[in-house]
């Protein structure tokens, strides 16, 4: 069998023009498919950045919340009620909102502000500079060092700003796991300072962050919160909820799906047509092989191997190219929202397999139909 595969390999790669066209078609298709889905994954990850960075196991919220950014404030009793549920180890409030800072140079800049529970500081970021205890100091804020920090004129510890006529001071430079989606700098402060500095509606708690006593308690907590008319979801469920919103309610998912399908169809057309031409050109030779004594299954193996080899090589090149492009883009734009995930790679792999199967099928069908007698007849 090895010999037959070697013959098939040589027939394929020695036809340099067609092999290059096949590889380019599949590489391009894979590149587009992985790129599109990676951008989508990146957007989803960025949209869930607060959930990832805060890291709480259970989030309690208004059932109408679709993304972290559009939180609907809840009354303070919700936090107390949650704390009294069996299975809750602790529950703390989180403020999440946007505000406009007036910088020292007089410029204004929109920012995301997260107010952490004053007692526990649950969800606090890791600090690159400064001391976390300084957040309790007068007017203390932490600033996240990400690609957006330059919009605040690259503040350092001690930099001041104005927030609704309140003075703010940077007391720490923090780092987070995931960057936000909307291109705004992020500041952390205490919950009480956040609701004091930023004008809010009657209710102030954006989310209640819950630590369950055990995994078994999670469902009970969810049920009890539901009875109160609110929603409790795990971190993963919240991310899924945000993901579902962007996929199905913003048009983003549909657009990405269309682009991915177009890439798939382009790849399918180029490789299918080129492979078909390749088979047609060698059809008489396959007929001759049949006459000599090759069995149909051996010819099928040759063709499937050729299609599979081309598809997998193109897949590797496409993924490599995509990774290179994302890497280059991230060198220039650190907040570039694109992430290659195993899911993206899996989707592209399945589509490439479909391309390989389709290409093989049209080739196999043609080769099985050729009769050695036709070779004699010319």
């Amino acid at each position, binding site marked *: 069998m090895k010999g037959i595969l070697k013959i098939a390999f040589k027939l394929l790669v020695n036809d340099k023009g067609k092999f290059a066209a096949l590889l380019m078609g599949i590489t391009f298709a894979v590149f587009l498919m992985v790129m599109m889905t990676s951008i989508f994954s990146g957007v989803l990850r960025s949209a869930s950045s607060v959930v990832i960075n805060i890291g709480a196991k259970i989030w309690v919220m208004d059932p109408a919340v679709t993304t972290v950014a559009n939180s609907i404030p809840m009354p303070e009793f919700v936090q107390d009620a949650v704390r009294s549920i069996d299975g809750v180890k602790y529950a703390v409030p989180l403020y999440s909102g946007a505000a406009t800072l007036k910088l020292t140079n007089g410029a204004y800049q929109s920012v995301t502000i997260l107010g952490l529970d004053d007692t526990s500081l649950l969800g606090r970021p890791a600090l690159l500079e400064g001391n976390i205890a300084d957040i309790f100091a007068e007017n203390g804020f932490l600033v996240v060092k990400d690609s957006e920090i330059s919009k605040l004129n690259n503040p350092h510890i001690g930099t001041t700003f104005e927030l609704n006529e309140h003075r703010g001071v940077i007391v720490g430079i923090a780092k987070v796991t995931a960057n936000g989606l909307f291109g705004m700098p992020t500041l952390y402060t205490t919950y009480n300072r956040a609701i004091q500095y930023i004008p809010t509606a009657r209710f102030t708690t954006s989310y209640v962050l819950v630590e369950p006593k055990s995994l078994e308690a999670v469902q009970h907590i969810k049920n009890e919160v539901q009875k109160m008319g609110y929603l409790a979801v795990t971190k993963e469920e919240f991310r899924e909820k945000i993901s579902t919103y962007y996929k199905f309610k913003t048009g983003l998912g549909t657009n990405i799906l269309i682009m991915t399908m177009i890439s798939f169809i382009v790849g399918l057309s180029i490789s299918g047509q080129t492979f078909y031409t390749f088979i047609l050109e060698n059809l008489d030779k396959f007929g001759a092989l049949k006459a*000599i*004594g090759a069995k149909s299954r051996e010819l099928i193996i040759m063709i499937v191997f050729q299609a599979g080899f081309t598809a997998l090589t193109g897949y590797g090149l496409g993924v490599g190219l995509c990774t290179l492009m994302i890497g280059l883009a991230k060198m220039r734009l650190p907040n570039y929202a694109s992430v290659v995930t195993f899911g993206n790679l899996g989707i592209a792999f399945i589509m490439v397999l479909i391309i390989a199967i389709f290409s093989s099928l049209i080739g196999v069908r043609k080769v099985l139909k050729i009769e050695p007698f036709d070779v004699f007849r010319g």
Partner: protein
Amino acid sequence: MAKTAISAQQLVKWFGVGDARTNAVKSASFEASFGEIFYLVGPSGSGKTTLLSMISGILKPDSGSVNIDNTDIWTLTNDELADFRLNRIGFVFQDYHLFPRLTTLENVAIPLILKKYDWDVAMQEALKYLDIVGLKNRAQLPPFKLSGGEQQRVAIARAIVSQPDILIFDEPTASLDGDTGKKIMSFIKDEILNEHRCVLVVTHDSRIFEYADEIMKMEDGAVTEIEINGEAQWLLK
């Protein structure tokens, strides 16, 4: 007396349906022996290629039988028939059908590869046969860099590399000039033919009739005459 290599009895083949139905071969019978060159001659459309295909196990006759060295080939399954062709029959096609993307050596080794030989062993063996046809020094060239006569010899090397009993040549001189055609036929007669091998040649090139031990003439699907060593044995018309 030479042993019978091929015995074809009452072979009939029809093509098409309805008004277009044509009787391509009409009850053809003949015997060819080991150690002889047997010609199948006739004008285009006389049915000789159809007959050749039935004899070589690639086109099933509507009726009749083909015995090769006492094996009724049309009782074999498809896979058995493929194995039979691989082991017992060597083909030299009119257009040679060499793979242009493989080297000459690899083309010759194809039957051995199909017989599951190890790659290196197949190449070594193929090189011996390239040497026999005088093209050892062309082993690494692609076939399209060879002349028509050389390609013909590569096709012959491919046909004999698995040491078949029956060699089938389809219009071996059709694309060669007269001298090259005669050289090829001399080569077949002197170097390829032996007492354990029967060579079947389909041709309408009268310039090479002199190399035949036996000539069977066909016309309109029927065998019209058989000549042995230049003498007509029987005539149908």
